[in-house]
């Protein structure tokens, strides 16, 4: 077998194996079968991804036409290179960690079987996006991910807010996807094909059309990657089970938007306007996310807002033409954020609440979780030598080296966000693991199936940064030159340390309720700057009113005419029938007058009177 064929088969297997396991799992009965399919499928996928990393070198592309809409073929196929393989490994590794973790986390859940199957389906859909060589295939993975996210957020039947959060997550992203679909349609129409290779060919689009397409695609990206103004669904999505938050709402799906921009990057570099929009979205979102994280009491919501903020760093890197840095941060973030969520799940599991007011002093009872959590938070803040330090600093270094307003905007927003990140991360760390243990709590380490995924994820969270020093890795991410440590790259570090110091100070000031230091700003941050209310007023309520109006108009106006016609016909008929129901004299009179009228008419016509 040729290398090309092997790579194609591996790429196809990445998407097909979990999808088949997922569909099969939906029909499977009983926990053992579901568990085998879920964990086994994820393990197999990870193996395929690792083999792919070690074998793929140059770009590999293969395709199969599945349907042709008249000179417009739709294909399924893979477009693989080392970057794709690396992202696939990250997705598959987190998916396996989550599948294993879930076996313990959902031990007593009677709906574990559909849950595991939906996680498999999700994994397959995400990997479809990762390997896709055709935009329609990519769109399919993109939407299936959204549906799995919807299903899994609504999984928990004990949480009354879960169904609403699920609907919100799907609909907000779906609104963005209107633009995404239109962008893909325009690309396909201009290129005469949906293949990435064809749509990226130079000269396909005019400059104006490039901007239009990029902005349309960005609507979908903002929805999926929870960027302003379509980020509002992500904090609510924390109603989903914690492993789902780790997999879908932190490590993989929300990063898919960034990945898609990366895949279509030549389009974006061709449009200055699109890059500016990216920069603006990134700057607003990273600050908004970090500040909102500061106001949260729920540990998962802190992490959710932190995800919003961290993905904005990736978007920022894309805005300043540093796609390799964006992808690097995507990989490190996948590791440390999955770690943080899974470890948070262990904490929640141990204390039985999501609220940080119910936590404290857990470092003694849960030392392993504590150390893993510490590594994760350190990586998030960007402390050397943890992974996040390298990737985030690579982005800020690129911004510092860049010229023009875009780079400056990103650099300033990035530095402030580094400070705020240090602040909220250290507060979380102190409130959960230090101080007094709440009365009545008996925290304990989680079972091995939950502990091991966390421990294993701590390894890349700590060490993945060093990969940056390897030329192979930099090349695989498409960087022009090997990542190196620059003196200038150390500039953000003081901001991070300052943030951590501020956190310690706040915590000493108000150990039970550090957010109170914020004063009147606290409710604003806690409510995510009230953007939910804005969205409700501007979109949700008008659409609801419109729907009610449409229904009323349809029933009383459009159908009213129909029913009215029917009724008046019946009335007319009844009236005529009644008129015919008179007594003999009246009937006789009618017949005679009829005869007279007819006679006169006959005479009139024959005589030609008119």
């Amino acid at each position, binding site marked *: 077998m040729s290398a090309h064929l092997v790579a194609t088969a591996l790429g196809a297997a990445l998407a097909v194996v979990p999808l088949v396991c997922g569909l099969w799992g939906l029909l499977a009965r009983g926990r053992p079968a579901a568990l085998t399919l879920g964990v086994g499928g994820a393990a197999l996928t990870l193996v395929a991804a690792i083999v792919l990393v070690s074998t793929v070198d140059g770009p590999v592309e293969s395709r199969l036409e599945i*349907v042709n809409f*008249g000179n417009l073929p739709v294909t399924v196929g893979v477009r693989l290179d080392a970057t794709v393989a690396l992202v696939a490994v990250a997705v598959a590794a987190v998916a396996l960690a989550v599948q294993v973790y879930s076996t313990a986390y959902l031990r007593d859940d009677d709906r574990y079987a559909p849950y595991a199957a939906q996680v498999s389906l999700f994994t397959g859909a995400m990997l479809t996006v990762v390997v896709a060589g055709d935009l329609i295939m990519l769109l399919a993975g993109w939407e299936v991910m959204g549906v799995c996210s919807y299903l899994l957020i609504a999984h928990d039947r004990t949480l009354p807010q879960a169904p609403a959060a699920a609907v919100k997550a*799907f609909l907000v992203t779906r609104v963005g996807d*209107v633009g995404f679909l239109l962008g893909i349609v325009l690309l396909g129409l201009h290129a005469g094909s949906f293949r990435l290779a064809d749509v990226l060919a130079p000269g396909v689009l005019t400059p104006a059309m490039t901007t239009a397409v990029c902005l349309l695609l960005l609507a979908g990206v903002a929805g999926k990657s929870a960027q302003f103004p379509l980020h509002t669904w992500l904090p609510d999505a924390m109603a989903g089970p914690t492993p789902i938050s780790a997999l879908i709402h932190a490590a993989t799906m929300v990063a898919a938007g960034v990945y898609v921009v990366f895949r279509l990057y030549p389009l974006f570099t061709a449009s200055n306007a699109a890059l500016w929009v990216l920069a603006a979205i990134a700057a607003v979102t990273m600050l908004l996310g970090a500040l909102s994280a500061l106001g949260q009491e729920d540990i998962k919501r802190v992490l959710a807002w932190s995800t919003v903020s961290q993905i904005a760093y990736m978007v920022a890197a894309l805005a300043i033409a540093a796609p390799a840095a964006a992808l690097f941060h995507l990989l490190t973030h996948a590791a440390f954020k999955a770690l943080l969520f899974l470890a948070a799940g262990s904490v929640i599991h141990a204390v039985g609440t999501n609220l940080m007011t119910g936590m404290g002093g857990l470092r003694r009872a849960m030392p392993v979780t504590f150390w893993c959590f510490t590594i994760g938070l350190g990586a998030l803040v960007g402390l050397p030598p943890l992974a996040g330090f390298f990737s985030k600093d690579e982005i800020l270094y690129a911004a510092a080296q860049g010229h023009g307003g875009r780079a400056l905007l990103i650099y300033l927003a990035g530095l402030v966000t580094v400070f705020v990140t240090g602040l909220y991360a250290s507060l979380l760390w102190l409130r959960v693991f230090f101080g007094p243990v709440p009365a009545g709590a008996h925290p304990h380490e989680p079972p091995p199936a939950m502990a091991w995924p966390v421990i294993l994820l701590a390894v890349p969270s700590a060490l993945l940064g060093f990969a940056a020093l390897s030329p192979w890795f930099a090349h695989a991410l498409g960087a022009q030159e090997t990542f190196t440590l620059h003196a200038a790259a150390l500039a953000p570090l003081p901001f991070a340390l300052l943030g951590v110091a501020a956190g310690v100070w706040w915590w000493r000031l108000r150990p039970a309720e550090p957010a109170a230091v914020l004063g009147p700003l606290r409710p604003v941050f806690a409510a995510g700057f009230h953007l939910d209310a804005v969205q409700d007023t501007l979109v949700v309520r008008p659409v609801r009113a419109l729907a009610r109006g449409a229904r009323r108009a*349809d029933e009383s106006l459009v159908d009213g005419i129909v029913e009215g016609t*029917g009724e008046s016909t019946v009335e007319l008929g009844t009236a005529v029938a009644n008129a015919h129901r008179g007594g003999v004299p009246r009937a006789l009179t009618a017949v005679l007058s009829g005869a007279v009228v007819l006679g006169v008419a006959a005479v009139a016509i024959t005589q030609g009177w008119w």
Partner: protein
Amino acid sequence: MLLTAVLVIPALGALVAALVPARFDRAGRVVAAVAAALTLVAAALLAVDRDPPPDGVLRPWHQVDLAWVPSLDLRWHVGVDGISYPLVVLTALLTLLCAGFTVARVPGGRHGRHLAALLLVIEVGILGTFLALDLVLFFVFFEVVLLPMFAVIAVWGGPGRRHAARKFVLYTLLGSVLLLVGVFTVVVGAGTADLVALSDGAGATMTYGTQLAAFVLLAIAFAVKSPLWPLHTWLPDAHTEAPTVGSVILAGVLLKMGTYGLIRVAVGVAPDAARDVAPTLGVLAVAAILVGSLVCLAQTELKRLIAYSSVGHMGFVLLGIATLSPAGVRAALVANIAHGVITGLLFFLAGAIKDRAHTGDLAALGGLRETAPALSGLLGYAAIASLGLPGLAGFWGEAFAVLAAMQRGGPLWTTLGVLGAVGGALTAAYFLRLLRRVTHGEATPAVAGLGDAGRLSRAELWAWAPLVALTLVLGVAPALVVAVADAPVTALTGVVAAE
């Protein structure tokens, strides 16, 4: 031979089932189901040994052309090609599922054999409509469907059945009158009723005025059937009050007589007029998409919601047709079939839920996944398919109808494409609202006490499994519909495009 069998088997089956004495009611239903199964086999085999004539726009794979009423020059001309074949198979499949379902369950428990017989008569009418290659014959078959469907709604329907049945029959009769006038305008204007000849250029010999008159008459007639906003209001009543099998046939295939007629008859016969009227059709189609979805968003009854969703979905089909482009007509054909499969399934599920909970009021339903997980899961699957998830059947037609509109370009069509895409988001909104109301949350009193009734019966499994599978298969392989229709659609749109 097969063509004749496709029409004769259900007719004979209906006759036998209807004549069976009342005490052998079940046997009558079984006979009907067997006839439906044989019809499906015959219909599927139509794709074998295709033998189309070498040239022409309408090139049937098989045809039968016999003198019928020689003194009036009426011919029995039937045939099948790539546009009609998927619809023929879908009709035969849905009728089989409904007839099979009727063996196990009769709404109201009375006269099951008559219901089954009527389903077969309806099948004859629908299949005849799809197969007819003579305009007068087309009209006759088109009308055959009407009265049996009236009876199905009026006898086996819900509480408001009489009003709904009357409205259905009067409204569609109005359409039929226009169809009749349209047919005779064409026959007189072009001098032939033969669809093959008409599509091959005989239709284009009519003066433009005649073409326009014929197209408008035919288009309104088909718009009532499809239905196109604002001629749709018979549909929610009829679909809501009809028994489950009636709703499945109504939504699944009966509506397709309208869209099929529009493609084959109206556009095929009067291409020049079609070109000029297309923008109006497109605007109305998008209005249907938006109004249909908005009404669904404020709807409070389960079956009525699904009925209204048909208005929106058929809007996408009509938008595809209105573009008159290769991509648009292909999208319309695949959306037609997808809607038949998915909405058929949705009506089966809605019927099953209403049978169990004894209410279709969304406020009284809730928490279905607690007491009937399989039913609730299937409802979720069908709803997600219906909202156009890529990978399932509903996606292709809707996405490519939008694409076709964007492809036409210009301010009008671009706007229509964008609004169509927005309609897609609204569709998601109302289906998720439906799922949230019906499946999530705590079980309401109507749902809580289901117990063993929450499980699926064997008849339900058998009737639904093909639709579930087909939804996935068409989602992965839309070429099943698109590829067989490739040649005829290319020929047809070629004629329209040629000035």
